[in-house]
């Protein structure tokens, strides 16, 4: 591991803002071995959050519902569900089978992840507040339906800082823009350095990946010469000003920036990976983003979000039509990349303290969405917030576990229900944080990620 102790990237600007909080204040240095400042021992040190934009269909992936065949064509009842214009309940065409020693069940769309079955914790009983993308995305990222709260990654960066002073603590990887966009990695009222550094992975060329990482014309020795002069002038300046700490902070930041140039250039450069490795992840934007996520996580980036979006689609998983064909295609890509990430992390010994999350903002309706005149093969599924599936792996969660359940038709999660707030509380717990105690005083009160909600799902913690 390249993790270092010290007042790193995420820490630099903190001095003023953490004082009032008195929590997780790492002025005593060291990003590891500091457990007395965590609320509980951490099971995970970093998070990779794989986000399937648009919302995958739970009944086609990890939540088999054979009863849908029996009730095929029947219309759903209950006032939560819009009267469907479609042809009623629609069974999944995909075969489900148990895998691994644990027998975790998934559909045939995940042949690679089937190999990782014993590492997966499948939460089938997720639910959220609304069936619309924007608020659904904000809820999953920020724990609130409006764009006025910091996201999970910013909270983690704020609470835990960075493991590597030369890299940002929080990075958001996305080929193009997901729906909602920057609010999903916003630090909101938390200090600005906790905002996610957004990286467009459409072009993996290192100079295009991160802005201002390289001088347009100067070589590294030239820039060193330049910075040496700057350092001399700044030292003359500070000497005449009683070594004011304010000035010293600027000098240090400049040096760090210089270090960052080389370290970040290396960290973000996927081309340094072998051809085999690149192929294992799949040479798609999502596959390569997952590979990049592994490089970053390996180098101590605390929180990495990876969005499954495409150049043309901000939410490819939003399969209102052609659900089956689309899922076949999307899952093939996501399956390969996610499985590669899990096995790669595992072989490097990183999976045990890296939490990997695979989810959408909600699920999809067990009934179809289809104009009756159209080809039934092109049927879609609509947004569905009362039941969906989230996968966790590594980072202190029980592998080979299927947790919670939906009703017979996959309409409502009914057993061991897990709200998004509960997921957040659990993720923070795995990182060693009590979600009720990671707070920030703003606008006259103490805010927290889970607001007044959230219950840790103890049963899935190893």
């Amino acid at each position, binding site marked *: 591991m390249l993790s270092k102790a010290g007042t790193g*990237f995420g820490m*630099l*600007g*903190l001095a*003023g803002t953490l004082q009032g909080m008195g929590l997780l204040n790492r002025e005593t240095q060291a990003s590891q071995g500091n457990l007395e400042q965590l609320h509980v021992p951490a099971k995970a040190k970093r998070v990779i959050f794989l986000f399937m934009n648009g919302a995958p269909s739970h009944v086609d992936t990890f939540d088999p519902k054979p009863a849908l065949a029996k009730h095929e064509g029947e219309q759903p009842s*209950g006032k*939560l569900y819009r009267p469907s214009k479609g042809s009623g309940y629609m069974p999944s065409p995909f075969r489900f089978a148990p895998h691994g020693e644990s027998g975790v069940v998934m559909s045939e769309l995940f042949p690679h992840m089937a190999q990782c079955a014993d590492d997966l914790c499948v939460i089938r009983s997720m639910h959220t507040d609304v069936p*619309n993308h*924007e*608020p659904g995305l904000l809820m999953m990222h920020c724990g609130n*339906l*409006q*764009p*006025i709260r910091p996201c999970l990654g910013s909270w983690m960066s704020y609470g835990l800082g960075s493991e590597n002073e030369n890299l940002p603590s929080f990075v958001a990887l996305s080929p193009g823009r997901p729906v*909602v*966009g*920057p*609010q999903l990695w916003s630090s*909101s009222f938390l*200090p*600005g*350095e906790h905002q996610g*550094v957004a990286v467009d992975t459409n072009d993996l060329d290192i100079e295009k990946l991160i802005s*201002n*990482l*390289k001088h*347009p*014309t*100067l070589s590294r020795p*030239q820039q060193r*010469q*330049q*910075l040496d*002069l*700057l350092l001399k*002038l*700044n030292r*003359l*300046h500070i000497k005449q*000003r*009683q070594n004011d700490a304010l*000035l010293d*902070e*600027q000098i240090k*930041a*400049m040096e760090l*920036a210089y*270090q*960052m*140039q080389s370290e970040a250039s290396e960290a973000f450069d996927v081309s340094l990976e072998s051809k085999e490795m690149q192929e294992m992840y799949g040479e798609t934007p999502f596959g390569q983003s997952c590979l990049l996520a592994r490089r970053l996580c390996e180098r101590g980036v605390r929180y990495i979000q990876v969005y499954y979006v495409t150049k043309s689609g901000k939410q490819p998983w939003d399969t209102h039509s052609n659900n089956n064909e689309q899922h076949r295609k999307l899952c093939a890509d996501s399956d390969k990349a996610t499985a590669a990430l899990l096995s790669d992390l595992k072989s490097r010994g990183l999976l045990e303290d890296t939490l990997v999350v695979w989810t959408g903002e909600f699920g999809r309706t067990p009934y179809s969405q289809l104009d009756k005149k159209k080809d039934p093969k092109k049927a879609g599924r609509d947004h569905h917030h009362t039941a969906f599936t989230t996968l966790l792996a590594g980072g202190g969660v029980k592998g080979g576990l299927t947790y919670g359940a939906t*009703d017979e038709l996959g309409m*409502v999660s*009914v*057993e*061991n*229900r897990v*709200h998004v707030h509960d997921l957040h509380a659990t993720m923070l717990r795995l990182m060693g944080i009590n979600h009720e105690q990671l707070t920030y005083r703003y*606008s*006259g*009160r103490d805010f927290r990620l889970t607001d007044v909600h959230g219950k840790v799902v103890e049963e899935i913690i190893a």
Partner: protein
Amino acid sequence: MFRSAKQFVLLPVLAALFSSSAFADEDLDFFESKIRPVLVKHCYECHSKEYGQAKGGLVLDSRNGIRKGGDSGAAVVPSEPSESLILEAVRYESFEMPPKTKLSDDVIAHFEKWIEAGATDPREETDEPIVQRTRAEIDWNKAKQFWSFQQPQKYDVSGNFENRIDGFVSRSLKEKNLTANPPADDRTLVRRLYFDLIGLPPSHEEAAEFYAEAKEDRAKAIQNLVDELLASQHFGERWAALWLDVSRYAEDQAHIVGKNKTLFFPNAYRYRDWVIEAFNQDLPYDEFVRLQLAADLLTPEDATDDVALGFIGLGPKYYRRNSPEVMADEWEDRVDVVSRGFLGLTVACARCHDHKFDPIPTEDYYALAGVFASTEMWNSPVDEKVEVAKNGHAKEPKESLHIIRDKNVHDIHVFVRGDVNSKGEVVPRRFLQILSKTEPVAFAQGSGRLELANLIASEENPLTARVIVNRIWAGYFGTALVGTPSNFGQLGAPPSHPELLDDLAVRFMENDWSLKWLHREIVTSKTYQQSSELSTNSMSSDAGNRFLSRMNRRRLTVEQWRDALLKVTGTLDSAIGGPSLTPDDRDERRRTVYSGRSRFQLNPLLAMFDFPDPNAHSASRVETTTPLQKLFVMNSPFMVSRAEDFVNRVESESDDIHEQIEFAYQTLLNRSPQADELGLGEAFVASAGWQQYAQVLLASNEFLILD
């Protein structure tokens, strides 16, 4: 076994008179075997006196409790399944209870049957009241004793001080055994005054003029310079930035669905320009407040100042607006920007419960929210030619001025625990109780915006003047007298100089709320004009400089810094006002205050240098120092371009390296280079060239940090 509803009315009476034997045995058996165990197992943890939990105000371990229900109404209405909320909840139709695991269909059927049959419930009654919306017992007389709710007053300044600020500061220094620093030297002072008053550095010539005058009569030179800078059109540009943060000014929305720009504010800049102009014209602050809340009601016949209503009208519009819960979120934004922005009170804390620390009950929040519930975000047509829809809105955003107007004037319910489905009592629209001398009077004119504005912009309001005085003070000293500029409540910071704050606030009002008076009062004080040297004494006993024994050394704001880069390189376009721009565009040469502010994505340069997120009111900027800022300084096309401009300027000035370096230092830093600096510069230019040297000078701490 089914009873009619009529028969059942008698039951509570019977139950009080008789023991449980009054119930039919089979009904009792049903309750004991099918209902009670389920309640105990699945509900009591959150809803019982036994566990001391009454979530949602609901307790289920007594007959009274289950029938009376919680915040949302009766959980069980005997024989009326459709009115019994508990059934909706267990069916997951509205509430989803129990939250973790849905009850089986059989159990749900038992509950239906039980209620239909009259909901036999033999459980003992207790005299304890059922938990309801708990109300804070506020002792108003005591609450009004808190410092910020008392009228500010003037205080005696003993000793001979030309400027009363110095009297108060020097008294507290004496108490702490501290002494003020000596005055800053001419160079430091001229730079400080230029940057602070107009946001730009003095040119070599401007500084030289001041040095010459100061030699004759320093006091007069300072006086003249302050007059000149206060009269400059650039004064409003510098200080508007503060108000744009307060008013969470922005030109778009955080939620953008596809390419839908119908909720954008392409003419928002007119509000920004109005603020600049208001500051330049020294519009009295009380009027400044009134116009932003109620210009349309103040002068119904004259729409000139209606643009000021952008203070509310340019606020966020959330996704799925017009649904009750989303509108409730929008009202919170309006209440928040008004209460924190003008009053330094966190009224929005009281949306879901009485304020936990300040005397602001929930009904006060809804009394204010009602004003905004009676106000519409209006796309007002920019002129008569614009095509207007039936509802009076201009059809195109670019032909709209986004302001507000009264619509559907009405009082609203308290939403218990902030839940729009859980309505409490209706509250009349009115002002906060803590800021009212007597029982607050219900607003009677339309939405009540004008009445609200008048109560805020009033000499009798103890907060309004203090809050703005404190904000302006922070703009000069980097630290505020009240360290939490938008929270003057219990959890806010107590004032470092309470008498100074009050004295300034009162005199500010006596001087007709003139902001320019306030600015002049501050910059002509010795406290402001002292040097920023760190003395051993002040560092040991007042390291944080709370007592102002020195001036604070400050990093330039991103506006000051970027504008300075443009001015020193001779490329600043100093036109005032107009549509917004992209500040990190290398060819953009207008001042930073004109930057577009986006709720969707803040410009990276602004975000990097601590601009607040305009999705909500910002009390102050959190200053950070990060390597990403320095990467911008080292490598960005914008900085490379500024260095090129500077080299052109230097080279057109002289061919002689000594003269060039002299010119560079005078232009950038208003001083000559020292001998070692000159030596280092000469050697570096000889080996690496001017372009690289220029970038070093522009990146130097001395250019970024104001002494």
